[in-house]
């Protein structure tokens, strides 16, 4: 293992429990209603292009997996969750060591966008989510 990988692994080991617990909370959501199942979340992550099986979802949530979750996967995972809000998003990324350079207006806009997005049908949500991921990451999408 290279030095760089060791640093990555040590860093992930230090945060994986808290990140996992946070992701589980996001999946359960803060509001009433059934939480998104791990199987459904796994399917939706697959739609986004990330291979995360139901078992991996479960183990990540328990902080048991040693393979670090990339920024892309954390953001994609968060976007699939009912409990996501700008505040929760900021907390999650801060926990994972990332800073979101959004102003108060940006945070408000993100919450408003999430509200509109949740009113869409699942099929439309999937298309929007795929695009939104790249906008949130600030990267050029691949299609």
């Amino acid at each position: 293992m290279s030095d760089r990988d060791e640093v990555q692994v040590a860093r992930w080991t230090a945060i994986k429990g808290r990140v996992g617990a946070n992701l589980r909370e996001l999946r359960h959501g803060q509001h009433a209603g059934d939480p998104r199942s791990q199987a459904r979340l796994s399917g939706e992550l697959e739609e986004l292009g990330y291979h995360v099986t139901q078992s991996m979802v479960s183990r990540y949530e328990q902080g048991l997996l040693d393979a670090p979750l990339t920024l892309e996967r954390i953001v994609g995972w968060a976007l699939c969750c009912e409990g996501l809000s700008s505040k929760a998003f900021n907390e999650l990324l801060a926990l994972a060591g990332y800073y979101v350079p959004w102003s108060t207006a940006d945070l408000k806009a993100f919450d408003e966008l999430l509200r509109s997005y949740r009113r869409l049908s699942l099929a439309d949500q999937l298309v929007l989510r795929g695009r939104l991921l790249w906008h949130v990451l600030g990267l050029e999408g691949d299609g």
Partner: protein
Amino acid sequence: MARLVPHAEATAANLARILRLHALTSHRGEAHQRVVAARRMLEELGVRCDESAALHDLKGFLLSSPRGTEIIICRDLSDDERLEVYAHLVAHALLGPDDPELSLAARFEYVAGRAPGERPAHELREEVLADAVARAILVGRLEAAPKLIYCRDLGPGRGPFSRAVLRGLHRGSLALYRRSRSYQRLRSLPMVTALTERVHSFLGSAA
């Protein structure tokens, strides 16, 4: 300057101009050429367009962020429908936030009868206004909408008094346009458009 697309005012003006030019030389089966021209213009002005999405309740949507703006259109739409969606979303961009930078926002165009029931009042108000502005774009006469929608800088005016009157008239026109469909129809009449242009030229010309 509205900031859902990089150059909202120029985009709307150019889209209307393209549609006006195509209307002058229209033949049957030209819808495809019109939509291709509209799309090309949007992309030249920095809006990414994708007409291949598998959407269900949406005809299309606009998504903007500091990273850029993109318009996604359902792959099942006809050329005319795609053009309508482009015009609607550009109209939303004109009516959108007034930020110095592109804002993180989305605007949705729903298939008729499939819009969610509980939409916020401000969204519904913007929708009604966007309908009217999109009609003006589609007939190639952006000037059929109140000037403040597509040109927020009214210019220097002949003097302070003329400038104040001009601004008052335009604001009044915009307020009426927001509230009254009858006024929207009246405002789109060529005679009324010509009259308002004349008043604007008279009061708005720099001394």
